[in-house]
């Protein structure tokens, strides 16, 4: 029996190996490889800012876990500094050129900005981080607003939810197996699949290519002001722009006024941003306003209605209000959608080639079988 020439050795193993390597590369390239952050700090004038999360970063699932993030301004002995002033700027992770995150418009944008007094030296907020990747906390801290010093940035890396990775692998396997099946059928010489494909194309083409009738609010909505009263106290909530927009910052300003219209000192504002569709909070914090006025810059990362629930407590009393705000969703860039579609088609194509090769090898094996066997 003669040896089969090198050039005719089956390539199906090579094709399977190439496809596996290709998608493992995609998988690895899209996952952050930097170590997850934990407590971290930067030291200036004896002050440090310690950043912790609960749960720890390795347990935070993007767009899923409501994590408590705590920033504490401590002195050289590690004790919190009462009345410290903190300025915080939080940036979203940069995008990945290989694979997009769930919210590509959010990548590389500003998420949160706040400056204010921390009565116990601590700022805490509950937050659902939108995407995987490396978040950057840029901070300035001082014993008061006049003595602010920049701190070394703190970086925190979140990995993708394991469920999403598992589902992705199932999708990869499904597409590949579909390709193998299609390749085997094509190589089998059947001609009817062309007609079936055309029929399927006609059935699916119309709803697939139809564009949405958008109900999103227009961009750059004018700022609004909402007030609530309780006795002599007036709680004022202002938002600019007047509607949220994925990828853009909104300024949320709060003030508590007395009967004379003057801000009430020593006011604490409790803020909760509630995702109406998912019926869950996406952000919550307590802000202290020694002069009765404070503000927060925030990005609504999901294009859905959110309810702003605000309450103000002061020695003079309490007032609460709630307001539903629209958030304009931004469709992912066409390039991202096309790129992802091409990845899937490549997977199917590799499966087709493997399926065809397997079918042809099997047919060749039958044709070489001895007569009468």
């Amino acid at each position, binding site marked *: 029996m003669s040896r089969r020439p090198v050039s005719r050795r089956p390539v199906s193993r090579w094709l399977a190996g190439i496809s596996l390597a290709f998608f493992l590369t995609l998988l690895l390239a*899209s996952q952050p490889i930097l170590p997850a952050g934990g407590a971290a700090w930067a030291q200036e004038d004896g002050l440090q800012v310690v950043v912790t999360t609960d749960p720890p970063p390795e347990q935070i699932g993007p767009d899923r876990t409501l994590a408590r993030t705590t920033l504490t301004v401590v002195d050289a002995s590690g004790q919190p500094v009462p009345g410290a002033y903190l300025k915080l700027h939080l940036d979203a992770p940069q995008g990945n050129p290989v694979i*997009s995150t769930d919210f590509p418009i959010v990548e590389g944008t500003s998420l949160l900005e706040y400056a204010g007094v921390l009565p116990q030296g601590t700022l805490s907020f509950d937050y659902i981080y939108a995407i995987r990747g490396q978040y950057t906390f840029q901070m300035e801290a001082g014993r008061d607003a006049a003595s602010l010093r920049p701190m070394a940035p703190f970086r925190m890396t979140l990995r*993708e939810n394991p469920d999403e990775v598992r589902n992705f692998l199932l999708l990869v396997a499904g597409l590949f197996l579909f390709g193998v099946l299609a390749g085997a059928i094509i190589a089998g010489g059947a001609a009817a699949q062309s007609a079936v494909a055309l029929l399927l194309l006609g059935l699916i083409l119309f*709803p697939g290519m139809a564009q949405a009738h958008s109900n999103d609010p227009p961009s750059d909505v004018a700022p609004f002001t909402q007030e609530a009263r309780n006795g002599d106290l007036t709680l004022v909530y202002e938002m600019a722009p007047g509607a949220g927009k994925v990828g853009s910052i909104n300024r949320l300003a709060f003030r508590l006024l007395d009967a004379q219209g003057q801000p009430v000192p020593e006011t604490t504002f409790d803020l909760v941003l509630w995702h109406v569709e998912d019926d869950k909070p996406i952000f919550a914090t307590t802000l202290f306003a020694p002069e009765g006025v404070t503000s927060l810059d925030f990005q609504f990362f999901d294009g859905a209605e959110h309810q702003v629930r605000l309450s103000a407590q002061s020695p003079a009393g309490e007032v609460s209000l709630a307001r539903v705000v629209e958030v304009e969703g931004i469709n992912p860039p066409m390039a991202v959608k096309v790129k992802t579609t091409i990845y899937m088609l490549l997977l199917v194509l590799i499966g087709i080639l493997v399926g065809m090769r397997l079918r042809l090898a099997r047919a060749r094996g039958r044709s070489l079988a001895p007569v009468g066997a």
Partner: protein
Amino acid sequence: MTQHATQHVTEQSKQTLHVTLNMVVQIALVLAVVAVVVWAVFFTNYPPVHDFFHEMRHSLFVIPCH
């Protein structure tokens, strides 16, 4: 004899070309159908389809959404 062999080879080449083109067309059709299905399930903005597959889109590693 030579003319007959030449004609046989030519016919074989034509058949091979026909089969190859047929396979290429079929592969292209399969990929086109897959592309349409993938686009409809994962990327279309058509609200009924978008809303129906919204949770699935967010449960997958590589599918971008708003």
